[in-house]
């Protein structure tokens, strides 16, 4: 018991500090001042502390970390300039009116049911091409991603668009931002949200809109196709929603975002 108390007091002292001058450690200071067991132990512990302290600093900082942080902070600063909104779930219904676009963030959770009904009604008016396939979706999504002017976004961790949830096949990454999307692929009335995904320098945009029942698989493909202009897209549908993931980069980037794809 004596040893434990002695060690506790010695372990409380930082090497090279004036900690021994603290009133609680005054008895220890007296013991350490003279040669003996306490002093020997004090020096041994100090040697360990210095060695451990130095080793703790030996951590390689990943390249590009500061750039990624600054990019994320810049996105956050764009977000905080938006109008105030309850920080929880929010429901978005597809709409083409410009007034709704301006006010989309003001919709509250309590409108979820009404919004869903409105969404179903609007779905019927889409001018959707009946021959739209995974390949045409891929091409049109790439074109849309290249030309769109993104709206300001919100942080997913604070505010979730419950009508357009993140796919269960996509990793939920910290710092993910979502934003509204209108007339996706220039299809009038095809509105939803886009998630901006980032992971270790890889970036991707996941568009989520109501599915018109096109012929696309229920899960994302195992591999990303050949990029066009540095981007490639894949599409799948689940729970009545069409998911289109536009990846900036190669298959390696794609694998950063998608959970265990199961189909080729």
């Amino acid at each position, binding site marked *: 018991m004596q040893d434990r108390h002695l060690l506790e007091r010695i372990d409380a002292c930082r090497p090279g500090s004036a900690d021994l001058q603290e009133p*609680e450690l005054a008895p220890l200071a007296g013991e350490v001042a003279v040669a003996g067991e306490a002093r020997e132990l004090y020096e041994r512990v100090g040697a360990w502390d210095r*060695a451990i302290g130095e080793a703790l600093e030996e951590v390689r900082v990943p390249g590009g970390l500061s750039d990624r942080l600054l990019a*994320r902070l810049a996105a956050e600063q764009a977000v905080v300039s938006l109008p105030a909104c309850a920080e929880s779930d929010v429901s978005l219904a597809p709409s083409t009116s410009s007034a709704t676009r301006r006010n989309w963030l003001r919709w509250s959770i309590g409108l979820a049911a009404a919004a869903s009904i409105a969404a179903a009604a609007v779905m019927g008016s889409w001018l959707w091409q009946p021959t739209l396939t995974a390949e045409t979706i891929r091409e049109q999504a790439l074109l849309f991603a290249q030309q769109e002017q993104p709206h300001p976004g919100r942080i997913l961790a604070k505010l979730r668009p419950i009508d357009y949830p993140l796919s269960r096949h996509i990793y939920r990454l910290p710092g993910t931002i979502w934003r509204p999307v209108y007339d996706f692929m220039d299809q009038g009335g095809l509105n939803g949200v886009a998630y901006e995904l980032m992971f270790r320098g890889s970036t991707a945009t996941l568009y989520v809109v109501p599915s018109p029942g096109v012929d696309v698989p229920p899960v994302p493909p195992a591999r990303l196709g050949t990029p066009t202009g540095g981007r490639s897209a894949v599409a799948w549908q689940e729970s009545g929603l069409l998911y289109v993931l536009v990846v900036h980069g190669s298959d390696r980037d794609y694998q950063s975002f998608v959970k265990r794809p199961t189909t080729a």
Partner: protein
Amino acid sequence: MAEHESRADITQLVADHHAVLYRYAYRLSGSPVDAEDLVQQTYLTALRKLDQVQSANAFRSWLFAVLRNTYLKSCRKRALVHAADWEISLENLPEEVREPPRVDSQELQAALDELPAEFRVVVLMFYFEHRSYKEIAVELDLPLGTVMSRLSRAKSHLRMRLTADEPELRPTDNVRHARII
């Protein structure tokens, strides 16, 4: 204008402190991915609460505190290990008096990973933040005796694990199963 100044400040904070924050976060979390997330969350909090810091000299301490609290918050739902499950012994110290041991960084991390979060935080505040036991007690709102006990037990564990032929001090089976990974 104010927003512009705020952005300049946060940019400087990233430039000045991101590396040391990452090292701290890595030692706390034991994972490069979690460490980067922790640093990101820390700066996001900093961006929102930058006006709380009165002095530029206090930025690093403040960022450390934000990071530490973010880490602890993420650990709250995980199993906690009681201090009584740990034993310390003077036999765990090396025999050398003057020669400091060669500490391997990865072995050190493995030893840190075995510590419960509340012990890991205390020992890293001591080593990484260079906080005194009194400052740790104030920061964590803990009694001095608790801080001294946790600090000593955590340090003893590190010393034991970093000494190859020291099999005596082992956490109990319960501790091993409950360790935070």
